[in-house]
């Protein structure tokens, strides 16, 4: 545990004492590296190792189709290199025009599908090297970019989509966008490489006033929640803002710090952690506060071990009191005492609702966020046709779903007709478990996946639905989340039942997460297959059906029933159940 002024692993140490990525960043001339040269090379569909680290800051990840790896190796072909491109979309809001561009690019430059993410944005998969520039240019023309969608910087900023409270959303969403824009890297690399801009006169030192040459030790995440909905899992953010409403208006935010999901198997020093609420702050001070928190992590975060480089460890290692003190010292003012608020759920509420402004909003269930046409459902085509007539906006939710928002009363029928016409399912057709579930992308694109997730969870859910039927509680929502590895991209450690992949067909199972994202779950089964999973859940769910108390969520029940002990702090996560 680092003492408060220990800087031995932090910014300012000689680069060769730090993680290799620190040298790559420092030597990259502000994220330029040799990306441009790599794009020009015709002999490989890939780019160099170190450029791979840099393109992330541009929202671009090199991947390869892992299913073709060994086949292509035998064929003496390099892996089927392709790129994932992630859009920066603060708060998940986009216009119908932008939707049409995204749809077009997905079909002409990517693998024909769009992926809604757990942080409310879009991803393209399967973009080939020679299509990258065209993709970024296309987005640029639609006033979209991918800057800092990945990388050691402030990632896409989340914001509750809660459609009922239109006025609050209207107050908070612009803030989310301002924070995102304010914390963007300032380097000209993005425009030079992807949009063929000339390099502006050399102003190296000023190029990154906030981040500096080595940017952050690791990714950094910010989210704005609007109670009663915790649809962005505010406690999983490095920095969370919880909107406080007073007399129908936005009074300000309770601020929480130090959340994060990522962990590594067999490394107890890594664990998921929930953010702690440290006080209240007024709306006009949000941007300053966000920047200041970022600078603390920039200066104190661990730059030696990337597995412990997130702010949650900085805080645990030095203590929350140290953090608050350092924050208030840098701010020059103190946070007010936290106000009261109450969350009720972290899932989405589906179907049509009327906002206070008289506009209508329809939340669609998009299984695991994958937008593509299937025989039974022309999802991609349908949404394209809707975008052609829709006059409001689209909102991507933190649960990989989509809201057709701001529909005038007169327009609703027309959109309903289109939805019916293209077989866009009425969410009610899906069970409550399915509607509350999330799975990360995993195979075949994710380079870190150890097991299936997006392509497998739907089947597993079908079997669990069977159990729920037998137990006589088919409509009971239970939050189930799966990821293909321990990194936690679908925030599985907050689920009532969580799964993380260990190897093909093998998962860890976690139990006891809080129904509105207020409590971590705990490891229950290690490295098991479907059979064991169902044999274990069967009796548990039946017993839950019999013994649950009025309104008691499954996550609370498994703790009361003694299956697992409650996790009170991330540090305890790896302790024996």
């Amino acid at each position, binding site marked *: 545990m680092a003492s408060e002024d220990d800087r031995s692993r932090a910014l300012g140490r000689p680069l060769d004492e730090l993680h290799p990525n620190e040298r790559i960043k420092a030597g990259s001339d502000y994220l330029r590296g040799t990306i441009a040269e790599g794009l020009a090379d*015709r*002999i*490989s*569909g890939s780019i160099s190792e170190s450029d791979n680290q840099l393109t992330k800051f541009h929202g671009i990840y090199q991947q390869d189709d892992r299913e*073709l*790896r*060994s*086949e*292509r*190796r*035998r*064929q*003496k*072909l*390099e892996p*089927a290199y392709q790129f994932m491109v992630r859009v920066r979309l603060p708060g998940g809001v986009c216009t119908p025009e932008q939707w049409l561009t995204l749809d077009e690019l997905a079909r002409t430059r990517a693998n024909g599908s769009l992926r809604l993410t757990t942080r409310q944005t879009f991803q393209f998969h399967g973009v*080939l090297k*020679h299509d990258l520039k065209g993709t970024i240019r296309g987005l640029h023309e639609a006033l979209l970019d991918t800057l800092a969608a990945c990388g050691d910087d402030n990632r896409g900023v989340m914001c509750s989509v809660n459609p009922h409270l239109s006025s609050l959303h209207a107050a908070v969403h612009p803030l989310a966008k301002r924070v995102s824009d304010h914390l963007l890297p300032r380097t000209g690399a993005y425009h030079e490489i992807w949009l063929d801009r000339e390099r502006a006169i050399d102003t190296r030192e000023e190029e990154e006033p906030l981040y500096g040459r080595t940017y952050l030790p690791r990714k950094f995440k910010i989210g704005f929640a609007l109670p009663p909905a915790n649809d962005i899992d505010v406690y999983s953010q490095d920095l969370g803002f919880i909107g406080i409403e007073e007399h129908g208006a936005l009074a300000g935010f309770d601020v929480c710090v130090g959340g994060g999901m990522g962990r590594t198997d*067999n490394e107890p020093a890594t664990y998921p952690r929930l953010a702690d609420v440290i006080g209240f702050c007024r709306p006009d001070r949000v941007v300053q506060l966000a920047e200041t928190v970022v600078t603390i992590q920039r200066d104190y975060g661990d730059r030696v071990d990337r597995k412990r480089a997130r702010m949650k460890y900085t805080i645990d290692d030095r203590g929350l009191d140290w953090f608050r003190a350092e924050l208030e010292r840098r701010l020059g003012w103190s946070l007010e005492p936290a106000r009261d608020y109450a969350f009720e759920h972290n899932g989405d509420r589906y179907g049509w609702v009327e906002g206070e402004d008289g506009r209508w909003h329809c939340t669609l269930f998009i299984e695991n966020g994958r937008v593509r046409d299937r025989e039974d459902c022309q999802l991609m085509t349908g949404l394209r046709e809707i975008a052609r007539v829709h006059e409001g906006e689209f909102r991507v939710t933190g649960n990989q779903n989509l809201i057709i928002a701001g529909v005038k009363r007169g327009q609703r029928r027309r959109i309903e007709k289109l939805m019916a016409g293209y077989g866009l399912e009425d969410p009610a057709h899906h069970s409550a478990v399915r509607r509350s579930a999330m799975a990360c992308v995993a195979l075949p694109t994710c380079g870190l996946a150890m097991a299936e997730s997006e392509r497998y969870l739907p089947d597993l859910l079908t079997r669990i639905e069977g159990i729920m039927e037998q137990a006589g509680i088919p409509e009971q929502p239970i939050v189930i989340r799966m990821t293909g590895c321990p990194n936690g991209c679908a925030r599985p450690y907050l689920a009532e039942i969580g799964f993380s992949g*260990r*190897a*093909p*067909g*093998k998962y860890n199972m976690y139990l006891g997460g809080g129904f509105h994202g207020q409590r971590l779950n705990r490891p229950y089964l*290690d*490295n098991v297959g479907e059979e064991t999973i169902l044999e274990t859940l069967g009796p548990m769910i039946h017993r839950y059906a019999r013994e649950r108390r009025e309104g008691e969520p499954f996550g609370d029940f498994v703790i009361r029933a003694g299956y697992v002990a409650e996790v009170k702090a991330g540090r305890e996560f790896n302790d024996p159940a």
Partner: protein
Amino acid sequence: MNPTPLTDQASPLDRQQAERLSRLVEALSPGQASWVSGYLAGLAAAGQPAAPAAAGPDAGARITILYGSETGNAEAIAERARVRAVERGLQARAVDMADYKPRELRQERLVMIVTATHGEGEPPDPAEGFHEFVHGRKAPKLEGTRFAVLALGDSSYEHFCRTGREFDQRLAALGAERIHERVDCDVDFEEGAERWIERALDAFARHAEPAPSNVVAFTGSGERQGTVHDRKNPFHAEVLENLVLNGRGSDKETRHIELSLEGSGLTFEPGDVLCMVAQNRPETVAELIGTLGLSGEETVAGPRGEVTLAEALTHDYEITTLTPPFLEAWAQASGAEALQALTGEGRRREMLEFAHGRHVVDVVGQFPVTGLTAQQFVDMLRRLQPREYSIASSHNANPDEVHLTVAAVRYHSHGRDRHGVASTWLADSVSEGDTVPVYVQRNKHFRLPSDPSTPVIMIGPGTGVAPFRAFVEERECRGAGGRNWLFFGDRRFRTDFLYQTEWQRWLRDGVLDRLDVAFSRDGRDKVYVQDRMRENAAELYAWLQDGAHVYVCGDAERMAPDVHRALIEIVAGEGGLGEEQATDYVKGLQRDRRYQRDVY
């Protein structure tokens, strides 16, 4: 011992040899040194050169530590083992299985393997190739090799440390001697691994010098007195590998075929051609016999004496491609006017147009002849010709193998699917383990420059790239200093970049100096090799002025003429010459054997 350092000036050796020798000498104890001098003297007396196998890359005392690692643990352990070994004054190198040339394995004396297991008991991705090789048909016998295996794993998996176990058992099965017991490490492998390394190195240390008996054995391998193989007496070569080089979604089917020449005595040089004595498809034979209204049991006298008609049509005759003689004979026999109209004087063009895309069976069916005997029919046919394939491997690099790059000929014409005889026989009916009749055909007019320092420019789109794989392999194997520049082209980058990873390695290792590729179906506008040549006109001309040799292989119909034209243009443009002078310049190149083509 510490001799005056060897340099190439101070000795008749070239730099590389000098380095190798002094490296070896440094590592010798006085005892070893005197033994070696005796050994070499002995060789000289016996007038025998030490066979390459012995002198091969640092054979002898060195420990080779091969690691299979995905997330870095095994790699770290392997590196630690190397350091420990060096601290003990042993020669050791740690090599990622992904970068290891399997060919070297048979020469290793001391092998330490450190490997993880991934997937569900599968080898780590980077180790897959080596794992497959060691467990495959081409794995060498390993008598004289000593080894020990350290396995990393996670006991919570069903197949704990399976990959380590597999290597352990397989190496023993190949005749290698296990000199230290395998240990299977769980996720907390640190101490266990540390302890194992020390014990294992104790064992290795005991063997860390080549036993004399061992070395003497090397000198055994002399020249093979192979029998001659030719069309009449082809060698039946076992198929070691037969795979499609084009990735999924490609509309091409280009095969990489590896044949074993073990025991054949066959030798060849880069540029030579392998002839394949193919056979016709059973379905084609049956259809033809049926159309003729014969049974196939009839005996006919053919080139191989008396055999059944079916037999003869399968092995001895060309029964697809229509030849003018056949058409004439058939016109006569059938008396069909339509055919006779084609056979008259000066009607050749019409005849060939008619023949194009038509096969014997079409004519036999369309113009039936009654009462024709089997013998009469086969007498109209042409002998089945062997098919030639540019050899795609270097004899020096793979003494016991020959590699081919074969495009399957399939097309549809006049309402029928057609299959090229040899190429689709290889593609559809020949699998690993089968044998195919082959012999070597010299190709004197397609030869690497005798001076290894001469630069070469190779232009080989599609299967035309085959001989250049042999060229580059050969230049690498011989350590030839000359620069190498390859132009390759095909349809699509993602699926049709034949031997992509091999070219990439040769580029990395500096064996290949330049590689320019043209893929015709990727972008809006079609790009071909000749376009890439033009883009690089200045440099290409400079290479020519430096005495570079130019080689063209592949399609004779369109590619070769286009490339030829491009070459003349480049010379004219860069050399400031007129059309004619440029043409002469290129003719000159051809005369001097500096511009050689092998097109088909």
